[in-house]
């Protein structure tokens, strides 16, 4: 295990930033202060942040509609991100993208995607670029259990395998695609087994255990970086909140939700870090506080930022 103490701290911080970010966004939505819709990732912080932390900082990712934890995990500018959520000129996409399109191509975030499965193809050939240009970078492609039933999943895994591209296909299986439980959208329990259909390795991990996530992704990243072709990882996790904004949860029980809240990935990491004697509770508390403060600062930044000028409507359609 090559994880360092400073990595742990950063991981813990980013997970808390992600949680704080979502709580804030949820609050804004409930009060109609953000328009449109959003898909919150509370409960999935270990899965997303742990995976990104195991990458090198200039590796690439494609993110999803449920991507806040993913891009925060990748190490994003929280101010620009919150500004984007509020549709501001200072946002990552100058207010044109919003929650579902957070992107920072130069920093290796090739974009969240409003289309389920929309990132599969993009990830595959972002990987071609790395291979042909011998950059040594790899691409991690996030997607959900529901997305694993799109044709794009199949075409992308097959192509990446045939071309031995440096991609990690990282499935965040939170047991539901919107309201549809996995038992009703596929006839298998373990998505990682689909790897066999493409002749590549597949692994399942406990997506609520940040350390396990980090270790597996780090190991797989090494394998992928060495030119062995793609790998499929299934990260088993759960979303605490409704599918988007809110929903009535008609499709699952309170008990199920509660049972997963008991597996809170942030608490689990806390316990581990304290238990291993790496940090004191007080030290972690400070880190958490810093994360929440950073989010408050981001909100202030976003609030004070200007709206995009109306002329910008017609800009940036073409390069």
């Amino acid at each position, binding site marked *: 295990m090559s994880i360092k103490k400073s990595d742990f701290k950063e991981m813990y911080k980013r997970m808390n930033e992600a949680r704080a970010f979502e709580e804030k966004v949820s609050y804004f939505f409930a009060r109609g202060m953000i*328009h*449109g*819709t959003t898909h919150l990732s509370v409960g999935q912080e270990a899965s997303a942040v742990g995976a990104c932390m195991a990458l090198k900082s200039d590796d690439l990712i494609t993110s999803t509609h449920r991507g806040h934890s993913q891009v925060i995990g990748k190490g994003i500018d929280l101010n620009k991100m919150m500004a*984007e959520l509020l*549709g*501001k000129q200072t946002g990552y*996409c100058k*207010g*044109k*993208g*919003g929650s*579902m*399109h957070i992107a920072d191509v130069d920093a290796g975030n090739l974009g969240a*995607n*409003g*289309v*389920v*499965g*929309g990132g599969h193809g993009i990830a595959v050939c972002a990987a071609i670029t790395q291979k042909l240009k011998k950059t040594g970078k790899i691409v991690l492609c996030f997607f959900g259990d*529901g*997305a694993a*039933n*799109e*044709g*794009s999943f199949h075409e992308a895994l097959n192509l990446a395998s045939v071309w031995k591209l440096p991609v990690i296909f990282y499935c965040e299986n939170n047991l539901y*695609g*919107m*309201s*549809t439980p996995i038992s*009703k*959208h*596929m006839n298998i329990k373990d998505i990682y087994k689909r790897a066999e259909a493409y002749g590549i390795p597949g692994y399942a991990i406990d997506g609520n255990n940040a350390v396990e996530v980090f270790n597996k992704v780090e190991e797989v990243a090494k394998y992928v970086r060495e030119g062995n072709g793609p790998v499929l990882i299934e990260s088993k996790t759960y979303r605490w909140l409704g599918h988007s904004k809110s*929903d009535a949860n*008609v*499709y699952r029980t309170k008990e199920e939700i509660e049972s997963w809240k008991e597996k809170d990935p942030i608490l689990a990491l806390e316990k581990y870090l304290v238990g291993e004697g790496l940090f004191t509770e007080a030290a972690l508390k400070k880190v958490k506080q810093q994360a929440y403060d950073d989010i408050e600062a981001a909100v202030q930044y976003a609030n004070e930022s200007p*709206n*995009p000028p*109306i002329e*910008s*409507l*017609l800009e940036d*359609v073409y390069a």
Partner: protein
Amino acid sequence: MKEMTYAEAIRAAMSEEMRRDPDVIFMGEDIGLYGGAFGVSVGMFEEFGPDRVRDTPISEAVIAGAAAGAAVTGMRPIAELMFMDFSTIAMDSLVNQAAKMRYMFGGKAKVPMVLRCPAGSGTGAAAQHSQSLEAWFCHVPGLKVVTPSTPADAKGLLKAAIRDDNPVVFVEQKLLYRQKGMVPEEDDFILEIGKADIKREGSDVTVVVYGRMLQRALEAAEIVAKEGIDVEVVDPMTLVPLDKETIINSVKKTGRAIVVNEAVKTGGYAGEIAAVIAESDAFDYLDAPVLRLAGKDVPIPYNPDLEKAVVPSVNEIADAIRTVMNR
């Protein structure tokens, strides 16, 4: 007559037809217990059960292909795409299979299916959840394309679409789902596919408009009425087959035409309608250019002010009316 929302009217149309005809089935993502992303089908799963109200995996290509396969073998499937934007994934099934089967097979097949597509911007969902892509489907022989702009029209046209023996793309306006209107309750209330409706009679200028823009055109008509301009508002209701006669006759009467739609201007169906007018014998009656007012040629942006500025406003429509009148 009963007051209902556009969404309720759609639900009523589906439910009535499903009660009447056991061959009508309904499939799509999260349309069951969840009631659909926009709540259109709430309660239908409870009434018709899992055989006839079928939640699908997230697999738009096979949803459309499945509808075609079910239709050609004797069912009358209704398929819902959660957003019209995802028709991009279903195009082969719809365009190369469903639309062409009958012709390709020498008339020896029929494909009675409806593909319901919630369209349009204004919900803050940005570029991949806001498109109005009806023009694509209008360019595919074998498909019919219907665009209701009121609750009553939605009900009457959807029932007609379900009973039609051809694949029908049924374009719904997300922003109208909560809009209310009086809707006939009779089971046999059916609106004919292929017939335009004159939503306001007038003598000075014809505004051809469909979907969400209809209401704006009617408002603009009231504004300019105060200035003494008498606007005729024609809602084609069906884009394919287009009721050219009603449109052309109106333009012959008024001598002026404006076509309004929400979709991106370039390559949009407003252009088709304008071209139909410009090549018809209404040409000789025209006193002004045939104007188009449509969505800006941009992807839909997220910021609400930008998003609003994308599509024609009441004032822009009124201005266009004044422009053609001042010729």
